[in-house]
């Protein structure tokens, strides 16, 4: 088991495991966000629960942040190593003849998602941390006695440029997932009679989840 991360197969496996974790997290994030379209109260309650329950805050959240950092750092390491494996490039290289644009540009789609995460943290995560851990207000309430989460969400999606940036980032997320989903399964060695079905499911996942996030952003912008 020692030194598994020093081998190409081991690195690939670790990359896939962090990807699985992030893909599950995405579903959970989406499930809570979509509540905001149906009911402000339910969304508020779910957000308050996620924001104050200790298991989520002190166990899942740090793991998630470490997962993102690991996935990003490993992605960079792989990219640099892979570029160095061919010091003299082809004069003519027809990548489209044998692979998809998505599969060849994971580093760029990933980098855009990372930039987006910076904006997203600035918008939602840092203010939350400030209120909860700097101001020490764990109530989740506004001055008028109502929960602040839904209010905060709607307020953020007023600006057109922010909504546009969010939508753009979700398009890149879809491009990243279109390759990433099935790639993660292949990396852990799952390639069998279910693979075709899984690929179809992966494509649906890669389109539906980001599209859902786009819908939520636009919904709040126009309401």
């Amino acid at each position, binding site marked *: 088991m020692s030194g598994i991360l020093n081998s*190409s197969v081991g690195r690939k496996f670790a990359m896939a495991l962090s990807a699985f974790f992030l893909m599950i997290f995405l579903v959970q994030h989406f499930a809570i966000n979509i509540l905001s379209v149906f009911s402000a109260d339910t969304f508020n309650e779910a957000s308050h629960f996620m924001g104050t329950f200790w298991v989520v805050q002190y166990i899942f959240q740090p793991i998630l942040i470490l997962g993102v950092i690991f996935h990003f750092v490993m992605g960079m390491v792989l990219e640099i190593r*892979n570029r160095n*494996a061919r010091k003299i490039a*082809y*004069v003519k290289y027809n990548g489209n*003849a044998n692979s*998809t644009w998505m*599969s060849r540009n994971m580093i760029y789609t990933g980098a855009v998602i990372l930039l987006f995460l910076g904006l997203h943290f600035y918008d939602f995560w840092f203010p939350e941390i400030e209120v909860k851990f700097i101001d020490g207000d764990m109530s989740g309430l506004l001055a008028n006695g109502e929960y602040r989460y839904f209010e905060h969400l709607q307020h953020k999606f007023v600006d057109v440029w922010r909504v546009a940036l969010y939508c753009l980032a979700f398009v890149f997320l879809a491009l990243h997932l279109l390759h990433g989903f099935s790639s993660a399964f292949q990396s852990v*060695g799952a*390639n069998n009679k279910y693979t075709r079905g899984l690929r179809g499911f992966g494509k649906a996942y890669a389109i539906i989840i980001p599209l859902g996030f786009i819908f939520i952003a636009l919904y709040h912008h126009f309401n």
Partner: protein
Amino acid sequence: MKLTLKIWRQKNADAKGQIVEYPIDGIEGDMSFLEMLDILNEDLITKGEEPVAFDHDCREGICGMCSLHINGEPHGPDKGITTCQLHMRMFKDGDTIFIEPFRANAFPVIKDLVVDRSSFDRIQHAGGFISVNTSGNTIDANAIPINKHDADEAFEAATCIGCGACVASCKNSSAMLFVSAKVSQFALLPQGKIEATERVLNMVKQMDEEGFGNCTNTGACEVECPKGISLENIARMNREYLSASLKG
């Protein structure tokens, strides 16, 4: 057919190479790509110039010796073939054709279009074999019952000719398809099970030491492989490697 060839010329391993342009005429669609290069070379020799060095041997798609990156793809625009099986009818009169060596640090250029693929041999030496008792009581391979499905898959993996197109096509210069074919052909058969753990660990270690890149599942190798070696072999190697790492 009249064509313009843009060929990578490089005197030796240490020289700096460059693309040189050669016009060529009188090429028939029924000629193979290598015959076209033969005509070019005859021409160059007649003119007292140095012919273009390129690898070839069987010229019937079985040895894996011919290489070449043609118009941005290993073995050229056709699928499921080697360069010696590529016909000139795949090109049109007036076309410009780029001809480059397979590129990867682990495949250094020796001269012009000839690259050193001995890194593949070293990976094979690291574990691509089985130990057979030859003391007189060897069991005939045909006497060992093997599931038809496994036998077929092992056979398919064994059709890899070690050409290196998988590495050449991969944006990461990864040798996973080749190594996984060599691991699979043994992993699926009872004779290969005995050394399975060390085999996969040693072959992957050697592959990494040779400086091949990391696979990111772009699937380019499978598309360009002249023998249709499937990505399923890479998945199998990943499984083999992980379980061997847990054991070892």
